[in-house]
C-alpha cells in the first residue's frame, strides 16, 4: 500500500510555522540564558558556597533531574495558580525550562569548577581577591570552557524538551505542527516538516554556542 506524500497543502501555513520557530527560538534563548545563569549560581553554591546552602541546592537538583519535564511544566502551569501564583503560558514555559536547565547545568558546571587546580584559588586569595572575586574572575571562565561542549548538548536537549510546551498552548513549533495537521489532516507531513525544522534548529543552536564559546574563550587550549 503506497502512501502519497503531499506537502503542497502545507504551503499556506508558512507563517504559522515561522511563528512556531520564532517562539521555540525565544524559549530556548531566554530559557537557555537564564537557565545557565541559575546553573552557575547553583554550581557555585554546591562547590564553594556556604555549607547550609548545599543540601538545599542538592535537593533541587535531584528533584528536577529525577522527574519528567512534562510534569514540572504542568506543576508550574496548572499547580502553582492553585496556591496563588498565576503565570501566562509563556512565563510558565520559560520558568519550567530555566528550572530544568538550571539543575542539569549545575551538575555540569560544578564538574568544571571542581576540576580547577587548587593553586588557582590560592593565587586568587594571595592577590587579596575575595572568594567571590576569585570565583568570578579566575575560576569561572576556565571552568565553563572545559564543560562548554557538555553544556551545549544539554541546551539542545532542553530545546527538544520544549516541544511539550505545546501542551499548555504555547504556540511554539510543535504547537504549529499540531495546528497544521488538524487543519490539513496531513499529520505525517506536518510532523516531518517540524522534525526537520528541529533538526536545523539544533544545528544552528550548536553553531551559535560554538561562536559564543569562541567569543567567551578567545584562548583555545593548545591541542598538542
Amino acid at each position: 500500500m503506497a502512501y502519497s506524500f503531499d506537502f503542497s497543502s502545507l504551503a499556506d501555513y508558512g507563517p504559522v510555522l515561522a511563528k512556531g520557530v520564532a517562539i521555540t527560538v525565544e524559549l530556548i534563548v531566554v530559557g537557555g540564558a537564564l537557565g545557565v545563569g541559575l546553573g552557575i549560581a547553583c554550581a557555585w553554591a554546591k562547590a564553594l558556597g556556604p555549607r547550609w546552602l548545599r543540601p538545599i541546592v542538592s535537593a533541587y537538583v535531584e528533584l528536577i533531574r529525577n522527574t519528567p519535564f512534562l510534569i514540572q511544566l504542568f506543576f508550574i502551569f496548572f499547580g502553582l495558580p492553585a496556591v496563588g501564583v498565576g503565570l501566562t503560558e509563556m512565563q510558565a514555559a520559560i520558568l519550567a525550562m530555566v528550572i530544568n536547565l538550571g539543575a542539569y547545568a549545575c551538575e555540569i558546571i560544578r564538574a568544571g569548577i571542581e576540576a580547577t587546580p587548587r593553586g588557582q584559588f590560592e593565587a586568587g586569595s594571595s592577590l587579596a581577591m575575595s572568594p567571590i572575586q576569585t570565583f568570578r574572575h579566575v575560576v569561572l571562565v576556565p571552568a565553563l570552557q572545559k564543560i562548554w561542549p557538555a553544556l551545549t548538548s544539554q541546551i539542545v536537549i532542553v530545546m527538544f524538551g520544549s516541544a511539550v510546551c505545546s501542551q499548555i498552548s504555547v504556540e511554539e513549533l510543535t504547537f504549529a505542527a499540531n495546528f497544521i495537521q488538524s487543519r490539513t489532516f496531513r499529520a505525517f507531513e506536518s510532523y516531518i516538516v517540524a522534525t526537520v525544522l528541529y533538526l536545523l534548529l539544533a544545528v544552528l543552536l550548536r553553531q551559535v554556542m560554538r561562536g559564543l564559546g569562541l567569543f567567551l574563550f578567545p584562548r583555545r587550549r593548545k591541542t598538542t
Partner: protein
Amino acid sequence: MSLITITEVRKSFGQNEVLKGINLDVAAGEVIAIIGKSGSGKSTLLRCINGLETINDGSITVAGAQLAPDEVHLRALRLKVGMIFQGFNLFPHLTAGRNVMLSPMVVKKVSQKEAEAEARVRLEQVGLAHKFDAYPDELSGGQQQRVAIARALAMKPLALLCDEITSALDPELVNEVLAVVKKLAEEGMTLLMVTHEMRFAREVCDRVVFMHQGRVHEIGPPEEVFANPQTAELRQFLGQS
C-alpha cells in the same frame, strides 16, 4: 621595628603538629632564606603568613595588622604581603598583561588604563615587557614565574613570600628567576623565601633560617650558618645538599 612579627605560631594538620611554636621577626628590607628538609614545616610557615593556612595558636603581625581568620583581616593582610608559588599559578585564560592587571582592577578598583600602565612597568621590571599579550602556555616556566612575580608586585606589597619558586623549573631556567629576585632584594624589597638554592641564599640573603621538625633550629647570617653550623642536624642537612 620589624615588619613581620611571628610569635609562638603553632599549626597542626589533624594529629600532626607541623609548626611547634615559631618565633621570627623580619625587619623591613630584610631578605630571609628558609631552608630545611621537606616536611620541616617551612612551606607551611609561609602559607600561614599569607593566611592560606589558619594557625592554631600564636600570632602573626604584618606592619601592625594582626592575622585573623576572618575575610576582612585576611584581605587586609594579603594587600601587604604577596606570594609566589612553586607552580606559578598563572591564570590560563588571561594574557600575561591581564594576569598582572586583574587584581589591581578587581580588588583596588584601579581603572583599566592605570592597571595596564602599571602592568607594563611591572613586566618591564621582570624583563618581560614584550610578552604582555602572550598567554601563559606560550611562555617558558621561567617566564611564567617572572610574570607571577610581576603580578604580585603590581599589588605593591610590603613583603613577598616565595615558596620554592624555582623548584618546578628546568635547571637552565632557574637563574633568570633568581636574577629577578636578586634585583628585588637590591631594591629593598622584604623577601621571605623557602629555597633549596644554597648558593643564592649565601649571596643574597641577610639571614638564613634552618627549620627542623617544626621549629626554628638555627638562625643567623649566611656566613655563620653555612660556615659554622651549630647543630648536628644542620651539618647533616648541609652535607646532603
